[in-house]
């Protein structure tokens, strides 16, 4: 069955837990086997555990001197201490008398322990003997108490080589924490990649057998892309440096410009994307797995972003929708202003049956109405240019969907600027009223606030102080409902706008941080991201040690998201709900979406 042979050709051995085994009583069919010819086992002894990883088989005939030279070369190349572990014999007809030959071999390659694995034709199980080397004499120790055991574990070399065990640890941390056996096995196979470059078509002095011995596998497209990517990266890095030089002009570092650019989410998003560019297109190759995944995630999400942006452009410009959108913009602004005017008229009357203070009501209402009138005039002034501006701004969506969403958020912020202004006026007025009231209430009770000690102290006031204080307190108290009502209305409007902007920011954040490449890798090549391993017991014949098949247990999707999420300038609210409510009650201005990089309020 060719399919079975293909799959098995890649499987190699890992010997774990050497001590001479007791017999097992089962006789059940065996699934996989190593079909290599007889030879020497090359691998690594795992330090600290009684195990060895077998990486390849060197076939007869060979010259021991050349084997040793090759192994020391590889050792210096890969930093893995590869040694000859033992011998593997699968004797064909006419190759009897291997035993004495094998004994001679163990004197040529002196080891503390020498493994002898053998498989007979017709049988599926392997037998394994471990030979101890005491001094110069070779002794075969067979312990009769049957305590000791050998476990043979089969693994798929290619998958283990490409896989990364999670949680990812840096190579430098190995000395601090005792590395687990599994992690050492994965690291050994991954670092021994140069060992697998020699295949059976090479004309060297050694013939090796491993998963790639039928010929090295590579993809032409991947190699071409790798070659082409270097000049492209250099070019893009140069473009980026040009952009940085432009941004470093003094005129752009004046405080007003800095302030505006920190408020506009478009500028923030473009800065963020520039940082990403620098990460992705740097000509240096990614050193660690984490860096590589981050680069890949950023690159894929950037491509998807641009694709969605281009899709949006094709939809917007297809039936000249953008002009229609621009034409509806001014009437919408007019409509909003009209609604606000009606709201103010309602507040100036008897809103919800409440009786307002007539004079204050009129003052505030007229003030806000005049403000709206100014705003509408400004919008009408801009209206001939709006279509053109919007047409060109819409083209900026080719830089990505996130860019288009940021632009939308900024347009909404600019169009509702008057609501923001009203909120600030209302909040300031209300805040003043509340502070005045609390201070005068303390005076009414004969207390005062001690700024030095940050507490309330008693104080004796003069009669005229008390009189004026009480008068002012009464005035402010009776004006409170009016200011409170205006504050309430404008705060609610402001919160609606903030909510809408928040939704846009959340979706931008999502597109920025979602690790598409990692999720794709988890779905298409699940063995590359490993959470652990699973073992299957391979049914065996009596007289053979235990055979296990080791498979890779892929990482769960939720862990993938948690591990590989790209960090963003996160827009999480900086106040808890309780803090927010307290601020609203007192009248402090709220800025619910604060970027992490901002240090000042």
């Amino acid at each position, binding site marked *: 069955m060719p399919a079975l042979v293909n799959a098995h050709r890649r499987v190699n051995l890992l010997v774990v*837990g050497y001590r001479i085994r007791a017999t097992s009583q089962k006789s059940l069919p065996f699934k996989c086997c190593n079909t290599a010819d007889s030879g020497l086992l090359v691998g690594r002894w795992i330090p600290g555990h009684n195990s060895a990883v077998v990486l390849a088989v060197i076939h007869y005939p060979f010259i021991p001197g050349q084997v040793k030279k090759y192994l020391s070369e590889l050792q210096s190349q890969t930093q893995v201490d590869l040694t000859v572990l033992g011998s593997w014999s699968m004797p064909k007809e006419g190759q009897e008398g291997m035993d004495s030959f094998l004994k001679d071999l163990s004197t040529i390659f002196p080891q503390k322990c020498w493994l002898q694995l053998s498989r007979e034709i017709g049988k599926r199980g392997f037998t394994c003997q471990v030979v101890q080397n005491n001094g110069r004499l070779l002794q075969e120790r067979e312990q009769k108490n049957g305590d000791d055991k050998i476990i043979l574990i089969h693994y798929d070399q290619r998958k283990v080589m490409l896989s990364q065990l999670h949680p990812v640890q840096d190579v430098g941390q190995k000395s601090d*924490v005792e590395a*687990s056996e599994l992690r050492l096995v994965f690291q050994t196979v991954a670092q021994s990649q140069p060992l697998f470059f020699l295949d059976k078509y090479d004309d060297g002095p050694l013939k090796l057998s491993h998963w790639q011995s039928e010929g090295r596998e590579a993809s032409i497209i991947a190699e071409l892309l790798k070659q082409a990517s270097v000049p492209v990266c250099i070019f893009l890095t140069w473009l980026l440096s040009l952009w940085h030089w432009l941004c470093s002009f003094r005129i752009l570092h004046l405080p007003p410009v800095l302030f505006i650019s920190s408020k506009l989410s478009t500028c923030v998003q473009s800065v963020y994307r520039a940082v990403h560019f620098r990460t992705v297109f740097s000509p240096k190759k990614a050193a660690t797995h984490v860096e590589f995944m981050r680069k890949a995630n950023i690159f894929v999400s950037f491509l998807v972003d641009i694709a969605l942006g281009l899709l949006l452009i094709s939809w917007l410009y297809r039936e000249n929708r953008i002009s229609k959108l621009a034409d509806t913009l001014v009437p919408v602004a007019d409509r909003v202003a009209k609604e606000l005017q009606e709201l103010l008229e309602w507040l100036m009357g008897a809103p919800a049956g409440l009786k307002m203070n007539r004079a204050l009501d009129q003052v505030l209402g007229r003030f806000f109405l005049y403000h709206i009138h100014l705003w509408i005039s400004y919008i009408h002034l801009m209206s001939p240019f709006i279509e053109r501006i919007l047409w060109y701004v819409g083209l900026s969506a080719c830089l990505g969907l996130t860019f288009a969403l940021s632009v939308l958020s900024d347009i909404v912020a600019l169009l509702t600027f008057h609501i923001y202004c009203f909120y600030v006026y209302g909040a300031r007025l209300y805040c003043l009223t509340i502070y005045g009231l609390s201070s005068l209430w303390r005076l009414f009770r004969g207390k005062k606030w001690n700024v030095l000690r940050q507490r309330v102290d008693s104080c004796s006031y003069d009669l005229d102080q008390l009189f004026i204080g009480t008068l002012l307190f009464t005035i402010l108290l009776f004006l409170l409902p009016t200011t409170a009502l205006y504050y309430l209305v404008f705060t609610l409007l402001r919160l609606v706008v903030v909510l809408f902007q928040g939704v846009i920011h959340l979706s931008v954040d999502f597109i920025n941080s979602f690790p598409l490449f990692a999720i794709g890798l988890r779905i298409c090549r699940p063995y590359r991201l490993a959470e652990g391993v*699973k*073992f299957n017991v391979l049914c065996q014949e009596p007289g053979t040690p235990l055979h*296990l098949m080791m498979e890779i247990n892929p990482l769960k999707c939720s862990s993938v998201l948690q591990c590989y999420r790209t960090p963003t300038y996160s827009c999480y609210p900086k106040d808890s709900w309780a803090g927010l409510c307290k601020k609203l009650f007192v009248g402090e201005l709220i800025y619910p979406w604060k970027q992490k990089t901002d240090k000042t309020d």
Partner: protein
Amino acid sequence: MAEEEFTDINGNSISLDCQTHSDFCREFTVTSPKLSLRKVMVYTCFVWLFAYAVFFFTENTAVLSSAIILTLAGMMIHIHFVKVDHETLLIIGSLGVQLSSSYASGRESTIFIEMNKLKDIVINEAVYMHSIIYYLCILIKDPADPETVTSVVPLFQSSNPRLNCLVQVYRSCQEILAQSR
């Protein structure tokens, strides 16, 4: 291969299968009772009768189609994520312990715990609602600090066998753990 019948804490019958692969490798499989056809039919009929009643009053066919889709989706979610068919404990001396849950749809979820992280396998008592139940659990330690138990992994959580079954598994596991110490 010894298969025995036991009951779980709710009185349903479960079966325990012990397989000894070698002196130091044993596999225990606890099989829960299968999905009962009667229950499935009762639930489906109930949902659909309710949908028909609503349809009778509202004359909207969307109610019927949504009831069908809901039933199908609910059943698929139940057999893929909720209904456990059998749970397996594979203990390999000097290598580790593997826990595996196999769901009714065939999905398997596996965890492997290495021997150097495993402190012991014990039977614990717990007070659950109005009863005291016993459960088998694995005590996990950090290899750098062998005396502290960092976490506890309970076994056979979906099948919940009773003490007699747990004692059998416990004794077998302790034999193997004693060998590897």
